[in-house]
C-alpha cells in the first residue's frame, strides 16, 4: 500500500530529525519522545561500528570517533537494510570522505580496511578447493591454495604496530587474510614481497615451486639458486602448516 503524501512527509521529517538532530517539525510528536528516538538509533549505529572497528575506536579520540559516527549517520545513505552489513559502508565512507586527512591520521584508511578484512573474510561465501592430496613433492608438485583469502597491500603496517607508530614505517606491506578450513578462524599473515610474488604464481598460474624459482632467476640472475630454494622451502612449509596451502593439487599429479 502506498503512503499518503502526508505520511511520507512525516516520515521524512522524522528520519531527518533522527539522523541530524536538527529541528524538522515532525507533526504530532513531543520533543522528549523525539530525543529518545534519536538516542536509540544513534546508539545502535555506534554500537555496531565500535564492535566492528575496535582498534579504530581505541585509537581515535572520543571526539574524533563521535564525529565519524555522527557524519556517517547523518550523511551516508545506507545501501543495506541490515545493520551488521553497515560496517562495510562505514569503511567506504571513511575512505571516500578523506577522514585520514581531516584527522591527520595517514594510517586511518589502512586501519579501517584491515579491520574490515576480518569481517569480510569471516563472512565470505564458501569457496571450495580443487581436489588435493596431503603428500607430494614440495618443489615439483603444484600446491593447492586455500581459496578463502584476501591479499591486500597496505601502506602503513597497522597490523604490526600501534597505529600512530605505523606512520614511521610507511612502505609496501602485504597482508594475507584467510579463513582456516574446518575451524573458520580468520587468520592473518604478513608476507614478504618476494613471497607475495611466489604466492600469486602458485594461486594464479598453478606453477610448481621449481618453475617459479626458474622464473625468478630469469628475472634476476644474480640471485643464488640454492639460497632462494632454501628460503622458498621454508616459506612453503610455513604456508602448509598455516593451512594457506592445503596440499598438492590432484589434477596436476602425474
Amino acid at each position, binding site marked *: 500500500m502506498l503512503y499518503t503524501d502526508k505520511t511520507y512527509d512525516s516520515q521524512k521529517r522524522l528520519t531527518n530529525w533522527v539522523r541530524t538532530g536538527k529541528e524538522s517539525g515532525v507533526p504530532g510528536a513531543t520533543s522528549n519522545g523525539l530525543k529518545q528516538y534519536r538516542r*536509540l538509533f544513534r546508539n545502535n549505529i555506534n554500537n555496531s561500528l565500535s564492535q*566492528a572497528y575496535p582498534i579504530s575506536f581505541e585509537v581515535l579520540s572520543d571526539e574524533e570517533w563521535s564525529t565519524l559516527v555522527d557524519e556517517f549517520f547523518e550523511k551516508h545513505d545506507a545501501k543495506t537494510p541490515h545493520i551488521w552489513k553497515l560496517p562495510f559502508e562505514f569503511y567506504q565512507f571513511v575512505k571516500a570522505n578523506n577522514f585520514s586527512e581531516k584527522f591527520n591520521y595517514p594510517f586511518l584508511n589502512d586501519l579501517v580496511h584491515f579491520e574490515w578484512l576480518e569481517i569480510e573474510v569471516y563472512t565470505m561465501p564458501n569457496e571450495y578447493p580443487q581436489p588435493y592430496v596431503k603428500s607430494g613433492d614440495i618443489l615439483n608438485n603444484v600446491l593447492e591454495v586455500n581459496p578463502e583469502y584476501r591479499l591486500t597491500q597496505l601502506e602503513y603496517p597497522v597490523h604490526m604496530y600501534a597505529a600512530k607508530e605505523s606512520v614511521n614505517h610507511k612502505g609496501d606491506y602485504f597482508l594475507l587474510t584467510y579463513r582456516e578450513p574446518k575451524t573458520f578462524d580468520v587468520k592473518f599473515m604478513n608476507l*614478504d614481497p*618476494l613471497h607475495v610474488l611466489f604466492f600469486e604464481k602458485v594461486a*594464479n598460474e598453478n606453477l610448481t615451486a621449481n618453475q617459479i624459482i626458474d622464473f625468478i632467476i630469469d628475472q634476476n640472475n644474480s640471485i643464488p639458486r640454492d*639460497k632462494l630454494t632454501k628460503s622458498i622451502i621454508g616459506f612453503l612449509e610455513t604456508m602448509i602448516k598455516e593451512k594457506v596451502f592445503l596440499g598438492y593439487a590432484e589434477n596436476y599429479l602425474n
Partner: protein
Amino acid sequence: MEKKIKKTTILTGTVIAGALLTFSVNADARPSTQALGNGAELRTEIIDLNVVSSSAKLYELECGEKSGTATKKAEAKPDAKKAKTSEAKCGEGKCGESGKKADAKKDTKDAKAAKTEKKEKTSEAKCGEGKCGAE
C-alpha cells in the same frame, strides 16, 4: 582438468624488482613473512600496542596543565580495552554455534559495563539490546 585463473596480481613491477634486488643483495636476510595469528589474538595484541602508546600520551598530558580528564581516561581505557578485545566482531556468532553466541552475549555484557566508564563515547544507555525506551 585445469584450474581456472581467477585472481589478479596486486604486485607492481617496481615492488617485484625491489624484492628481487633485496634478495640478490642479501639472500641471508630473514624474510618478513610472519604468521600473525587469528583475528582475536591479533586484535588483542594491536589494541594493547595502541593502549600502551595512547596511555603514555595521556600520562604525559597529566604532567602538564589539565590532569583530571587524562587520569580518568587512562584509568578507564584498560577495562574498555579488555571488553572490546573479547567482543565478537560484527557478523561473528551468527553461524548457529550456541556456545559462541553465549560467549558473545556474555562479552557484550562485559563490554556494556566497561563502556559505561568510557563516558565520552557511550555515556548514553545502550540501545538495541532489549532496553529500548528505557532511560
